[in-house]
């Protein structure tokens, strides 16, 4: 029950969109393909679904340990047993929510009673009990995505493909739905590939990550692993690290964290914390600017030999007596940086 993509290349009118991408998605896991817009991740997903013909490479399905690899590269979409959920859901506007969800069941001529039961079950799973008779146009964006998810699950796919499932929603809703999505996928036990440009969404939903850039998969592995060890500076920045310090600039910061020298270090915004008491920090620098956010005070420091770095002050409110141009001391949290 493993999806195995080998050296897949897809191009549009001669321009390569995906170049020799290889992916491995083990049974029951959720892989997030993460990359900036235009990196080819949606094309990769559509090729897996069978909606884009590949120039080269194979898409295979492994039913179990030791089983023969089923080659799906030339199989038409509707015979792959994969369900693709679109960014905007693509609910059929003329059908009610219930009929939308039951659509894959009707395609397979599921008996009416079983169909009704399964539809209700799925609407229950996505938290939309009693919505069966509504029309898609009367739903909010989040509700529509839930219906689309239920419809995809109704196809009982061996692989679920999600194309930016939450990016059409506003921030608060996205956060809540991401958690729901994770729970629903766990409960359904469906193997899933998710495409997104939002690293937080990927982190919240997926247990494996593949990072894509310019049509190439630059790194893949367990989510936490990729997070701890970004492949390169660009990957680190895309994963939400605030700054990457290279070569000599990295050394003082690494030393302050109690680590040996490395070629580069990626820092989260909160990797440097303003020392509570003067003289206790491992690094010191001049305050270039600071601003308050609801949670913390964010500063930019100029550290000799390092350059400008971000730092935070733990408590809210401006640090007493600290002004632009003053010297400040910070400690380095080794859990909030990554050696590249």
């Amino acid at each position: 029950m493993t999806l195995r993509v080998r050296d897949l290349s897809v191009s549009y009118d001669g321009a390569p969109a995906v170049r020799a991408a290889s992916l491995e998605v083990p049974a029951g896991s959720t892989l997030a393909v993460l990359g900036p817009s235009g990196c080819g991740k949606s094309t990769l997903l559509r090729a897996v679904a069978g909606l884009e013909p590949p120039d080269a490479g194979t898409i295979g399905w492994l039913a179990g340990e030791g089983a023969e690899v089923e080659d799906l590269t030339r199989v038409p979409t509707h015979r792959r047993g994969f369900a693709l959920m679109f960014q905007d859901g693509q609910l059929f506007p003329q059908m009610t929510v219930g009929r939308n969800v039951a659509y894959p069941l009707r395609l397979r001529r599921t008996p009416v009673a079983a169909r009704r039961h399964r539809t209700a079950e799925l609407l229950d799973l996505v938290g939309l009990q009693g919505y069966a008779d509504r029309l898609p146009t009367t739903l909010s964006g989040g509700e529509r995505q839930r219906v689309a998810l239920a419809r995809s699950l109704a196809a009982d796919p061996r692989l679920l493909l999600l194309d930016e499932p939450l990016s059409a929603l506003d921030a608060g809703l996205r956060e809540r739905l991401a958690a729901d999505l994770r729970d629903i996928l766990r409960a359904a036990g469906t193997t899933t590939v998710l495409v997104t440009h939002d690293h937080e969404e990927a982190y919240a939903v997926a247990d494996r990550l593949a990072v894509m850039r310019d049509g190439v998969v630059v790194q893949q592995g367990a989510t936490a692993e990729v997070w701890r060890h970004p492949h390169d500076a660009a990957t680190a920045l895309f994963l939400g690290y605030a700054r990457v310090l290279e070569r000599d600039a990295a050394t003082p910061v690494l030393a302050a964290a109690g680590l040996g020298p490395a070629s580069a270090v990626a820092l989260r915004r909160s990797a440097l914390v303003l020392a509570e008491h003067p003289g206790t920090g491992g690094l010191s620098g001049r305050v270039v600017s600071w601003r308050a956010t609801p949670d913390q005070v964010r500063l930019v420091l100029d550290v000799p030999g390092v350059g400008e770095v971000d730092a935070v002050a733990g408590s809210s409110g401006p640090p007493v007596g600290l002004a632009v141009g003053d010297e400040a001391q910070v400690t380095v949290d080794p859990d909030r940086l990554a050696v590249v």
Partner: protein
Amino acid sequence: MTSATSTTTRRLATTAALAALPLAVLGLFFLLPVAGMVDRGLRPDGVLDPGAVLEVLMRPRTGRVVWFTLWTATMGTVVAVVLGLPAAYVLHRLRFPGRGLVRAALLVPFVLPTVVVGVAFDLLLRDGGPLAGLGLAGTPAAIVAGLVFFNVAVVVRSVGATWEGLDRRPAEAAAALGAGPWQVWWTVTVPALRPAVVSAASVVFLFCATAFGVVLVIGGVRYASVETEIYLLTANLLDLQAAAALSLVQLLAVVALLLVSARLRTTADPTRSRVVAAPRRPARGDLVPVVLTALVLLAVAAPIAALVVGSLRVDEAWSLASYRALGAEPGDGAGGQALLVPVTDALLNSLRTAVDATWMSVLLGLLVAAVVTRRSRSRAERRVRSLLDGLFMLPLGVSAVTLGFGFLVTLGRPPLELRDNPLLVPVAQALVALPLVVRTLVPVLASVDERLRQAAASLGATPARALLAVDLPVLWKPLVGAAGFAFAVSLGEFGATSFLARPDHPTVPVVIFRLLGNPGELNYGMALAASVVLAATTAGVMLAVERLRVPSLGAW
């Protein structure tokens, strides 16, 4: 409050000013003549005589004529839709060399003068013609074939434009849920196309039911539709009362049909921009529609080819004699005896008339479209606008014969002594073309997002500047396209013109019909040659329009 009131007043004043000219023209040159004609029939001696109307409607012949009209129109519609759908798919969803040419070729029949089409079918099917073996000459089947020939382009165009704009993602979503190609077709594509098909079918039905030239030339006196019957009653039998009664019935039926199709008409959401799906190369699964499209193309080409060949044959040999005769003065041996002027003069008349009719219908159409698409602020205002919209569609449904005869009745005597005004024919033709112009421009103007105009205004643009920046860029192509349509319609208009054109100032369709009505090989040959010239002129205009890629023949 005061300023709000004055704004409303100003809006209404602008609307009224825009609508004034089209309303005046419609009232004087359409409503008045039609009313005069109907009045003449209903009150033959100055007293209302509804009994006489009933008597006409109870005649067995009337029943036969109505039944004939209904079933030929229905058959014509069904066949046009069945043949048009595969062609719409092939020409708007697939990509192949020569696609633009095939599209243009299929559009040509729609604008061919009806008389020409009648002649071409007659030539194809009559004794000694290439398809004489079918035994269809002068039969209802030939009439239906003529109607289909005309209207298949309407289906291809309007359904094709919708098909082209269909988002392919719902189909992909269905496929990704396990739907096979047929299941996708029935559950996704058909529901999405249904409104376009229904509205194309209703307008085709309207065109079929009011067709004049085709039915008259192919069916003669043996098979009459309501439209040709009105003509026969008016022009040959001088039974005005019966003609008026039939006109009234036709008017009511057409209004009902227009109301239905207006309800079915879907207006595009202006906030959603139209995306044209990228056409793909034909695959093996496309074989059936491709073959059907080729057959349609062949069926469209056959009558035209027969016409061209026929015009070049004189006494069983190739000859240009028929064409040479077009320029000859009547009476000098070489020319026909049936005419008062050479056919070349008629061609000049046709072109001059068409130019006048074109600017008139485009001007009126633009005003009507502007009035109809202005954003309404209240329900009453919206109702007034849709009423105006419907009002200017009326010429589509009123028998051109009724209109033409109404002109004679009401405008030929004081106080409106316009009978000899050279602008009378262009005005009548402009009114016939007006619905086509309006329906081409309205969807375009309606699709302009009001917020774009507001954005321009908020940046300091005057309404005129906003018009220049926002409306003009999207409007000019459809405007030129509409002008082309109007020009073609005017060139081919026969119903009204046959009444109004003075004998010494005929247009080409009138000349062709007169030539056909006179015996003699030369007259027939000249009719064919004149048909070819007329067809070539209209086709040339249409091909030029096609190059502009106007999306559709209007949204009906």
